[in-house]
């Protein structure tokens, strides 16, 4: 049994069917990259995993427990499933440190001192210790995104969802953020990430998943997807990416 099992998940917004039956398994310590054009359903799939969106069909299991449907303790589920968004979504009225400490103190209930110590350790590991008292508006996009990653990590999630976390960054800031994700991958954190950074996906992914208009078109190890894609739609997508200079 896989750690994260996504089984025939369907999701519609009104009449617009965004996910048309997606099945995907993620093993423990595995890094799975979702690639595909904008609107192919990558973000929606991630948001379904931690139930920010309710699925309309299918089931999701984490560590053997069904997390979709009625009666699930969503707050407990979301403690275990961290997510980082494309637009950072830091809380603008709190300092960096308060952003990171909020969930551990309020949700887990550890003491302020303990939470602060832990937050500072994490901030130091991403080079943000000097900015702990700054407010999000004063930081660059790359710095904000590093804080957002730390904020999710502070809850010690068992799986991390990264939703195109470098898509809104200036090109020269992408590297720092990807470096952190690379370290997390080497550290053995289970991750499911949507990305447009093909080079990065090839490097860190153990499995690459090409989504096309709401269903998985092709799925396999990165060498296979990037070097010998079998599906014509995958070939077409990748050749476009190569033309735009992203691979």
């Amino acid at each position, binding site marked *: 049994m896989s750690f994260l099992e996504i089984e025939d998940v369907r999701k519609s917004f009104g009449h617009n069917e965004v996910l048309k039956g997606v099945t995907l398994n993620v093993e423990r310590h595995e890094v799975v990259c979702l690639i595909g054009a904008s609107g192919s359903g990558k973000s929606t799939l991630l*948001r379904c995993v931690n139930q920010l969106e309710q699925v309309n069909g299918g089931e999701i299991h984490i560590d053997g427990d069904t997390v979709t449907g009625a009666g699930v303790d969503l707050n407990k589920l979301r403690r275990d499933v961290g997510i980082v968004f494309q637009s950072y979504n830091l809380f603008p009225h709190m300092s960096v440190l308060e952003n990171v400490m909020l969930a551990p103190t309020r949700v887990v209930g550890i003491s302020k001192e303990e939470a602060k110590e832990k937050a500072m350790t994490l901030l130091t590991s991403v080079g943000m210790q000097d900015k702990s008292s700054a407010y999000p508006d004063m930081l660059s996009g790359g710095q904000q995104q590093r804080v957002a990653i730390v904020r999710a990590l502070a809850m010690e999630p068992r799986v991390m969802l990264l939703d195109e976390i470098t898509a809104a960054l200036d090109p020269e800031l992408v590297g720092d953020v990807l470096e952190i994700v690379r370290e997390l991958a080497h550290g053995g954190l289970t991750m499911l990430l949507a990305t447009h950074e093909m080079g990065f996906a090839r490097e860190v992914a153990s499995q690459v998943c090409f989504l096309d208009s709401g269903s998985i078109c092709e799925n396999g190890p990165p060498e296979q997807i990037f070097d010998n894609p079998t599906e014509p739609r995958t070939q077409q997508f990748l050749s476009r990416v190569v033309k735009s200079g992203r691979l």
Partner: protein
Amino acid sequence: MSTPDLVEVETLPAPPPSQPQRVTGVAVTALVVDVVGIALMVFAGLLLRDYNHGGIFSTIVAIILVLGSLYPLWPTIQGFRGGAKRNRLLHNDELVAARRASARGREDATIGLGYGAAAIIVAGLLLLGLTNSGAVAETFFRTDAWHQSFGEAIQAFWINIWVAVVSFVLVLIFGLILAIMRMLPGRAGAPLRLIATVYCDVFRAVPAIVTVLLVVFGLPLAFTFTQRWNPAFMGVVALTLTYSAYVAEVYRAGLASIHPSQSAAARSLGLSYAQTLRAVLVPQAVRRMVPPLMNDFISLQKDTALLSIAAIPEVLLVTKLWESKLFNLSPVTLAAVFFIVITIPQARFVDHLINRDAAKRAGG
């Protein structure tokens, strides 16, 4: 088609350099406006002096006004000079310098025009007030009527302030209850949501003056125990009923204005709905609610004058009694001045808050 074919810059003729604009026309217009302003102001000054029988104070005021109306001549003259300079430079083929001189000259002439127009308006208003041997001043601004009514008026005004403050405290509480009711989720909350929605719709539809009449005259008849209440408190009840409906909307709109991504971020960290509200949404929403709440508070202060129709001795009722006693409206103007004095600083404060928020958002 290759890219170089799309660009034909080299084959196009160079556009002619832009010529300096004319200055004299603007300067002449400014001069005419200035002269009219001065003439009117001299006339108004003479009337003002005559109206006060050549008193020293009004003579000084009249002289200052006339001197002020002379000021626009100075930038107008600068405008003419700029125009002359432009013509000279253009004649010498110094195009760039001519354009600059023209721009300076036109700006000076426009300033002269603007100040001259303002002088005409001020002089016109003065003339309006002083013609008909001072009928306007006689009707609205009689100082002896102010003297007589001031003491009672200011005492009555305390009732207005008291009613406004007590009402607004109650409004903040009752409005919050309504807003929470309107935001209850799910099917369980549906009936309460409906009740709160109907309440807000009804009390925003009914004119405040109608609510005041119904409450102040109706409550003592319908609920006899309220007969012993201070009638001003009836007014508080009426205004609270009306303004709670508006304030509930402000609360709701304030929370709705926080981007859903903030809620998503908080919930994804495992915070419950209540924790998300308390730690993330409300602190951000409060800042956005303050300006509209202040606006409602200002409206509420002004609407305390509605209590006069219910025989509550607030400032408008008292000054109206003085009006009938003296056959002169000046005491009512005094009531207006009271409202102006307390309201304008608050309005400026709200503007300051809004500007500060706008600057913050622009900076972020």
